[in-house]
């Protein structure tokens, strides 16, 4: 994906290639074409230098084949204005437009596609076109779910055994695996490396990595 970019690591490029393939495959609740369409909404929202305001439905300006307007609106706001989301917004959406596990799958698509769009922009690369969607029904595979006071969304049972952000996508196993087994280790560090406060891959020191992480969280107005 990032051929010709000086300093690019193969594992980082490979992880982002995996995202592009993954979002075009059938998920647990969304088909390949639906997931691919969702990814295009995320890319457009992420790369829009002047996105519409949070309360302006994106579907009033764009139409996306294969996705209901409420899904387009949700994807756009989750990408461009994530920090403005509220519990009441989540409750209304999952009562009217999709199930809670289906919503969690979209959270994973928003997060992983945003990572690719971010890196491409940051290193000066052009985002490649998404591959052709793979047909086939959603797998409907989902673990036994539990409620947690630490997330709006349901999580894999038993709840509250891991950090809230780690459990967050556990209702969507495919998205959870992509994020924690491929993306986080290549972009930042693997779970087992986080406990080693001196860990480095030879470029940024750990404090330098944490400085960048904290700065992005501040810019995105996220407590995380």
């Amino acid at each position: 994906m990032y051929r010709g970019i000086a300093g690019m690591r193969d594992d980082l490029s490979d992880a982002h290639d995996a995202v592009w393939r993954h979002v075009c495959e059938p998920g647990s609740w969304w088909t390949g074409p639906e997931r691919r369409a969702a990814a295009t909404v995320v890319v457009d929202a992420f790369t829009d230098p002047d996105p519409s305001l949070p309360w302006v439905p994106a579907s009033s300006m764009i139409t996306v084949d294969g996705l209901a307007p409420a899904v387009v609106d949700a994807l756009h706001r989750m990408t461009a204005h994530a920090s403005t989301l509220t519990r009441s917004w989540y409750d209304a959406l999952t009562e009217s437009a999709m199930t809670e596990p289906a919503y969690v799958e979209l959270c994973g698509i928003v997060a992983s596609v945003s990572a690719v769009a971010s890196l491409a922009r940051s290193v000066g690369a052009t985002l490649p076109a998404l591959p052709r969607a793979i047909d086939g029904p959603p797998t409907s595979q989902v673990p036994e779910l539990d409620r947690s006071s630490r997330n709006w969304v349901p999580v894999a049972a038993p709840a509250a055994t891991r950090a809230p952000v780690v459990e967050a996508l556990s209702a969507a196993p495919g998205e959870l695996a992509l994020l924690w087994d491929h993306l986080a280790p290549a972009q930042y560090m693997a779970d087992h490396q986080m406990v080693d406060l001196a860990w480095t891959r030879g470029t940024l020191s750990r404090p330098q990595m944490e400085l960048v992480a904290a700065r992005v969280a501040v810019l995105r107005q996220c407590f995380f």
Partner: protein
Amino acid sequence: MMLRASVKHAGGTADLRAIIGEAGEVGDAPPHSGLLVAFADACVHGTPEALVVARQRLTDATSAAFAVDAAGVVANFEMMTRVADTTGAAYVDGAQAATADARALTGADAFETVRWG
């Protein structure tokens, strides 16, 4: 918390002003703090022209691989902030108290996530 812990592990005391771009390149701020903050800012909110300049300055001071890895961290936290915000992830027990000074410095208690409820 991880910035403070990693600096402490290295034998220093974290100057959290680095997060808001006020620590400069002195004291216990990580090396190239100013360039890293400027690069992160350009990656998230900068114009294409500003991003080219910030990336080149960081590359000139470090290396192309360093700048790519910094961009990787930016990408990771563009990802993780969306995971946290879209799923309504909460503070873990004890984190509120442990991060009080950092939240005061960065204005985190007035972040949109908090204001919007």
